[in-house]
């Protein structure tokens, strides 16, 4: 049993806002839902599957009601919560549900306003008494990974900076990007140290906004007007310190989710023309490129240097919307926007300055939680038909 080719992405929408103090979070979910449904050329009453994560106010049943979905038709819901990669996991779960005949038109939404106001903390796990007091944040948790990666493999701040440089080259063409200025390696190194060894420009933006997807059957997708984008491989995985044995913060759960997705798709990293890689921090990108097999473990620094991730310049164009480092990071969760830009690339709808030629195979990969503590990862491989 495989989901290869069983589900297509027929509708996408990214909210253009980056700051929305005058809107409610539920309203943003409704706006992105409407956008994706209209992009697909469908009606909200066609939706029979709904997927959301922890950012949806109240969870699935209040959202289904608020969004006015057709409850006589809606027959599948999934509120899997794995932080920033929730929506990549939802994409795989939607394909599984579609392949099993449990729904035929699935809506996935993400929206929220961390730039307007701080997000509520995640509920504590069994580790709370043994970790909360030490103040793990995104910055220092990823800082700990970067510090050890540098120690074990000689990775440098200059190499990490190239990831931000590449993102900024792409963001200059995105009218909605928060940071449109092209930056240099020196700019990154000269930005203030936030949590060693990560500088301010190694960190993503904080933005309001959201995005949504419509996932459907091959038959329905072919009856609609959009270019056809199908899911051919999917993987998910989790990693944590697991009792403190063999701690290794230089790799992520992508080391498991990636191969699962590539095996299902029947392709290798060499076949990928465009990569959307979660970029909460520069180190996140570097570790994930290694874990997904784009280069050997420890060689990510060399791989990303000298513009290798810049569209039209390097071998692996990545995050051509400017990504989380420059464009947006709605709800502090980058998984949705990773899928959206991958679909734009496959449809040929990316900005002409960053559109990859003959883009027929793309990857969208993300993580959720903290790479330096415990996290989830998910990988989706998409093909233009």
């Amino acid at each position, binding site marked *: 049993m495989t989901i290869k080719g069983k589900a297509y992405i027929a509708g996408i929408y990214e909210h253009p806002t980056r700051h929305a103090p005058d809107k409610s979070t539920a309203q943003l979910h409704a706006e992105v839902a409407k956008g994706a449904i209209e992009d697909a050329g469908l009606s909200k009453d066609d939706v029979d599957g709904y997927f959301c994560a922890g950012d949806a106010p109240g969870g699935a049943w209040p959202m289904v009601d608020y969004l006015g979905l057709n409850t006589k038709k809606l027959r599948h819901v999934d509120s899997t919560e794995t932080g920033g990669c929730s929506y990549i996991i939802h994409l795989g779960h939607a394909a599984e549900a579609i392949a099993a005949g449990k729904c035929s038109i699935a809506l996935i939404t993400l929206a929220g306003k961390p730039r307007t106001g701080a997000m509520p903390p995640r509920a504590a796990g069994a580790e709370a008494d043994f*970790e909360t007091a030490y103040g793990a944040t995104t910055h220092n948790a990823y800082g700990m990974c970067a510090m050890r990666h540098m120690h074990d493999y000689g990775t440098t701040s200059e190499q990490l900076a190239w990831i931000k440089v590449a993102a900024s080259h792409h963001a200059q063409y995105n009218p909605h990007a928060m940071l449109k200025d092209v930056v240099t390696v020196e700019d990154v190194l000269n930005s203030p140290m936030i949590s060693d060894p990560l500088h301010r420009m190694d960190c993503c933006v904080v933005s309001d906004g959201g995005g949504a997807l419509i996932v459907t059957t091959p038959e329905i997708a072919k009856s609609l007007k959009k270019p056809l984008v199908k899911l051919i491989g999917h993987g998910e995985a989790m990693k944590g310190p697991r009792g*403190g044995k063999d701690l290794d913060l230089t790799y992520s759960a992508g080391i498991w989710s990636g191969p699962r997705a590539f095996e299902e798709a029947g392709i290798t990293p060499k076949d990928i023309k465009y990569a959307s890689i979660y970029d909460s921090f520069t180190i996140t990108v570097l570790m994930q490129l290694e874990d997904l097999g784009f280069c050997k473990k420890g060689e990510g620094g060399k791989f990303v240097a000298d513009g290798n991730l810049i569209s039209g310049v390097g071998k692996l164009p990545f995050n051509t919307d400017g990504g989380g480092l420059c464009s947006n990071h709605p709800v502090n969760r980058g998984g949705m926007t990773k899928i959206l830009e991958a679909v734009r690339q496959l449809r040929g709808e990316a900005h002409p300055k960053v559109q990859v030629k003959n883009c027929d195979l793309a990857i969208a990969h993300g993580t959720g939680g903290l790479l330096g503590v415990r996290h989830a990862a998910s990988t989706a491989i998409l093909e233009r038909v």
Partner: protein
Amino acid sequence: MSEAKKYPAPVTNPETAAFWDAAKQGKFMIKRCTACGEAHYFPRAICPFCYSDKTVWEESSGEATIYTYSLMRKSPTGPYAIGYVTLKEGPSLQTNFVDCDLTTLKIGQKVKVVFKPTDGAPLPFFTPA
């Protein structure tokens, strides 16, 4: 570095109460499984490696080396250094480094456990040995 920082008191629960009772006596405890022989941290009733329920408390030497760290330059309570240390007994754990110049920390450096008070049981931290 200022040590006026106030730390939250552990909530504790039946599975971990013995750890916090020992902490009040200045003892740093880990759990060891008598079925597979592996030590783990934080403490669980069921061994996370072999799923045996034959886990027992063991006092750790409190001696460790720094696996990694990151110095958070700013926070509402000032700079702090978070990291992981690997205990002489094997398990690695998350902690903060205290009572030292936070800018001189190094991976591989030897550290030892030190307790800091809260309104409840004291919390374990690490400082250069």
